[in-house]
């Protein structure tokens, strides 16, 4: 929880400074806009977090958005499929892509980085080929109005995406932190061999994370599509996997696996969105958008690490020696 607390403090400090410079930061409109974005980005970041906890990574998310996005819009507009069906089809699509990657990773023992990198390349290529590089959107008609209201509407002004994220975070939080599956996920992420020796079917556990990530990416696709109302296959969702990874890592996930929490991921997402918002709100040149993000991530991770090291040193007075040395070594040491 310490990690989350630190992140929360960072979030508060950044927000306070921004609000001090431009009070409009705290205006209702702005907060709700941000809530909406946090909602959308949070959903797929949670999925990414699961794959990172297994010690893997999912680089394919952004391209999945493009592929599922164009298909989704086409289903609704071109083929006039009823929205519940279209929604189901897209979610199924996400799950299948996730399962495919999971198969390559767990069965054929390929590295997650490679598999999902190829996914990144292939899905976007497929989306571009399928549309012959033209964008898809809801233009003239009002397709799937019910679904649109669900995905892009709000309740008492609070965006549904945000409400959805809160509910999802609770459910996933229980899954990750309280359920057997969650425990196995941590176990597999830390020491897969030992997990197998304990009778855990590690392949299934890992596969689950990728399938989940695919499913959540599919849901995010729908949210994002209704946010932008259009999908341009070559740019839709480009680089979003990096947001997700950054959010998860900021939130305490370790790329070595076995670490991370849902609360952390959500806070990480929130911080990234606040950072982007403040660039616009404070009128900082937009070219500095990424630079601000990079700097804050760097400083955030660095501070956290230094604080933790100090804490450990203090704890070491209680008599532990290897404790401090071992993780420091493992930091960049061998895996599994």
């Amino acid at each position, binding site marked *: 929880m310490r990690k989350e607390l630190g992140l929360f403090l960072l979030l508060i400090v950044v927000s306070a400074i921004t609000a001090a410079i431009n009070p409009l930061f705290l205006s209702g409109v*702005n907060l709700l806009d941000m809530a909406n974005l946090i909602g959308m980005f949070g959903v797929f970041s949670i999925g990414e977090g699961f794959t990172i906890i297994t010690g893997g990574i999912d680089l394919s998310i952004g391209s999945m958005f493009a592929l599922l996005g164009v298909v989704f819009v086409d289903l609704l507009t071109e083929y006039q499929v009823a929205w519940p069906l279209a929604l189901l089809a897209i979610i199924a699509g996400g799950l299948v892509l996730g399962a495919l990657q999971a198969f390559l990773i767990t069965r054929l023992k390929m590295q997650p980085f490679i598999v999902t990198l190829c996914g990144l390349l292939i899905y976007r290529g497929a989306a571009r080929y399928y549309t012959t590089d033209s*964008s898809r959107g809801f233009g003239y008609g009002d397709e799937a109005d019910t679904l649109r209201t669900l995905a892009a509407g709000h309740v008492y002004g609070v965006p549904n995406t945000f409400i959805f994220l809160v509910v999802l975070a609770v459910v996933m939080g229980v899954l990750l932190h309280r359920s057997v599956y969650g425990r196995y996920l941590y176990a597999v992420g830390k020491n897969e061999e030992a997990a197998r020796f304990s009778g855990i079917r590690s392949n299934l556990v890992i596969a689950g994370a990728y399938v989940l990530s695919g499913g959540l990416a599919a849901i995010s696709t729908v949210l994002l599509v209704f*946010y932008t*109302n259009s999908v*341009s*296959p*070559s740019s839709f969702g480009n680089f979003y996997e990096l947001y997700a990874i950054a959010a998860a890592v900021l939130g305490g996930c370790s790329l070595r696996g076995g670490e991370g929490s849902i609360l952390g991921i959500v806070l990480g997402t929130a911080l990234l969105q606040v950072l982007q918002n403040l660039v616009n709100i404070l009128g900082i040149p*937009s*070219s500095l958008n990424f630079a601000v993000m990079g700097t804050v991530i760097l400083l955030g991770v660095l501070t956290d690490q230094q604080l933790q090291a100090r804490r450990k040193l203090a704890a070491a007075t209680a008599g532990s020696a290897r404790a401090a040395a071992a993780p420091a070594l493992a930091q960049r040491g061998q895996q599994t």
Partner: protein
Amino acid sequence: AEAQQKKTLVFVTNVAADFWTFARRGIEKAQKEHPDYNMEMIVTTEGTAAAQRRELDDLVARGVAGISVSVDDAAHATEELNKVAAKAVLFTTDSDAPQSKRVAYIGTDNVAAGRQAGQEILKALPNGGKIMLFVGTMDADNARERVQGIREALKGSKVEILDVRTDQADFTKAKSNAEDTLAKYPDISLMSGLWSYDTPEIYDAVKNAGKCGKVKIVGFDEDARTLRGISEGCVQSTIVQQPFEFGYQSMIGLIKVINGDRSWIPADGKIIVPTRVIDKSNVAEFVTYVKTLLHK
């Protein structure tokens, strides 16, 4: 505190490209004329509809008075634009969204620009030939419209468009696309770059291959090397827009509307800044103009 009193006008681009530097100069000129306003330019980070929507939302939240935006994926942004139009004076520039409640569009007619390029291609290839088009991505509106214009102009002629190759705005890829085309079609007659960096990369590739004059080039926009190619005679001509005017007229127009003057806006809201053909005859004068704008 004073900054809060001043009304803020913002110019929002669709991608990060050089083109917008000219617009920036236009905005700077307007700023000088109207120091009582606060003018800004936002060059988007991503060039995606999502990123642009976020920027617009943030600007509305900030309470800016006027926005002129080059719309990403215009056909589908109506709802968002209407939301913005309810809170601020909204112009579109460069890329229009005619269904939306924008007050005015200040920019190019890309189909017309395409037709102009088509005419130039016909002029360069009176006996017909094979041509290849190059662009960043085809899912951008201006790319589609320019291609459409070119096709219209070439209809019925003996000029054959082989393909459109895309490069994702990666210059290296743009150049290797041009090189590969020269390798694949030794008999290619003309290559045309639809985005500003495409033409200079084509020019380099053709020149390196020693095919200047044999392979003709018609392009868009005013990249320095494009203009140099024209002076040298390796590039036939280029179709230039007037982004300086986009920036300048957007700002001046926004101020007019804020002050209640809408009389200058036509019924369909479209204020077309005409495109020009730059070829050997007028390139020298144009280069001087560009230089004074960029290096001041």
